[in-house]
């Protein structure tokens, strides 16, 4: 920019000079910017008037805006605009859409729900969402569970029972798996014999003599006495959550994942030795509504293995 042109402009400088001749223009702000700025000021005034805004003493100005919602007792309430009332409005709108379905689920017995195609559609979508939010962290997205941690819900083996009612009971009240440790009560030889016997029940290749000795221990009243919980036929007792040992489904001992016969025996031995004091399923009765639990019970039942 030439000196002549500079002088020809009417714009003033800020009026001071640095280093002798370094000056700064004092240009006005662009018009659009200034008006946009004034608009934000006007907006804030409207906002202050409409919404809760200014602190006054130990309260605040509630604003002129009102919000009307239906409270939990079904009574219509009007108050100054606030996010908590706004949530009630949204929750009520949501409930209105789902309510007919949930009410139907709550009213009908399980066998009728299963036969109602419309409800089945509802459970397939609502149940999937509820399962993803609450159950999938442990039981995995498809309900396949994790050997060593959380049981598979998609097979037909149930620790506590696979009927609709039992699943509902499990979700509502939670569960806590327990098997006493036998590491001190039994010798390592006895534990090995028991492990051989237990594996023989599901058709694994084992040492026949060891398994026979294990069989005696399993059914002995004085030594191990496993039959007391797992049953004389070793098929488990669902009342106390004692698993069926005769099928090929394993939760605590990772038998399917063990490569060699020796490792399979080791896996079972570890469980007998240390027992089980885990398998905790949280109780959902406080967190979820009864109708949500009922939806989940049907959803879990239909994952594949319901009885």
């Amino acid at each position, binding site marked *: 920019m030439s000196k002549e042109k500079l002088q020809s402009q009417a714009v003033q400088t800020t009026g*001071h000079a640095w280093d002798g001749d370094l000056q700064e223009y004092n240009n006005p702000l662009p018009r659009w910017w200034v008006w946009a700025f004034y608009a934000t000021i006007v907006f804030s005034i409207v906002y202050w008037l409409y919404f809760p805004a200014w602190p006054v003493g130990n309260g605040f100005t509630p604003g002129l805006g009102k919000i009307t919602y239906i*409270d939990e007792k079904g009574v219509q309430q009007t108050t100054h605009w606030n996010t*908590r009332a706004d*949530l009630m409005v949204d929750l009520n709108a949501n409930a209105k859409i789902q309510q007919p379905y949930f009410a139907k689920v709550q009213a009908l017995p399980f066998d009728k729900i299963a036969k109602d195609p419309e409800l089945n559609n509802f459970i397939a979508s609502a149940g999937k969402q509820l399962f993803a939010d609450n159950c999938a*962290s442990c039981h995995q997205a498809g309900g396949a569970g994790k050997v060593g*941690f959380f049981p598979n819900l998609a097979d037909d083996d149930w620790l506590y029972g696979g009927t609709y009612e039992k699943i509902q009971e499990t979700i509502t009240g939670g569960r806590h798996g327990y098997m006493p440790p036998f590491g001190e009560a039994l010798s390592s030889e006895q534990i090995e014999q028991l492990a051989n016997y237990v594996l023989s029940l599901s058709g694994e290749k084992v040492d026949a003599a060891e398994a026979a000795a294990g069989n005696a221990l399993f059914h002995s009243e004085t030594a191990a006495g496993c039959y007391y919980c797992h049953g004389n036929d070793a098929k488990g007792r669902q009342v106390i959550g004692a698993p069926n040992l005769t099928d090929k489904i394993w939760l605590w001992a990772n038998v399917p994942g063990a490569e060699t016969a020796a490792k399979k025996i080791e896996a079972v031995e570890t469980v007998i030795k240390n027992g089980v004091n885990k398998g905790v399923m949280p109780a959902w009765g406080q967190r979820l509504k009864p109708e949500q639990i009922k939806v989940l019970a049907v959803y879990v039942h239909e994952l594949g293995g319901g009885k």
Partner: protein
Amino acid sequence: MNFNFKHEWIETNVGLMLVITMIVISIGGLVEIVPLFLIKNTVEKVDGVRPYTPLESRGRDIYVREGCYLCHSQMIRPLVEEAARYGHYSLAAESQYDHPFQWGSKRTGPDLARVGKKYSNEWHVQHLLAPRSMVPESVMPNYPWLLTTPLDTSDLVDRMKAQRTVGVPYSLTDAEYQRNVKQFGAETAKWLHIPDAQANLLKQAQEGNYDGDRTNISEMDALVAYLQVLGTMVDFSKYDAEYLMKGRGTP
């Protein structure tokens, strides 16, 4: 400008510019923050909220140390989507003893305000060791050292005293203990007594056995104890929406 104001006064005087800048900024801060100390009904009056026990409090320290708040918020907003996923919206009362609070502002992972009792201890332990073993799509880092690092409790008393200084009602004297008995009940008051802190921490870790190993107290014990108490203190069946709205201030 009619009143003969000159930029030059400020622009050529760094000290003056600093002072004026500070004044302008602090007006914004004062207007936004000071009223919150004065408005009585910011914090809802609800039963059940108590300071953390020594073990939970140490777990909280680890939560902060590991930077959990960088990916997890603890603030369920009053939005219908969050109500569906996480549960009841967070109350100011629920973080009244949090110094500093852990509301967070980044949600790479889920909100943790009500994670307490949602999962089992085993799940938490396994998930902290190797998140992807439990949630395949997770991007959370592994925290394997939590299980192998013994919990440092040497400065436990100092930490609780510091919290007490900023207003958390841990009791140091008998009079303060009696005040806690009145406010929280005898059972809770015991957990808040600073002279018993070490014993209380040991007791809770032994009884809770959070990490599944009773032979030592690891950082995992503390962190899981903390996670399992989050959002569980208030019984929301006792309060309806109107009551909590009033808590927020209906003038």
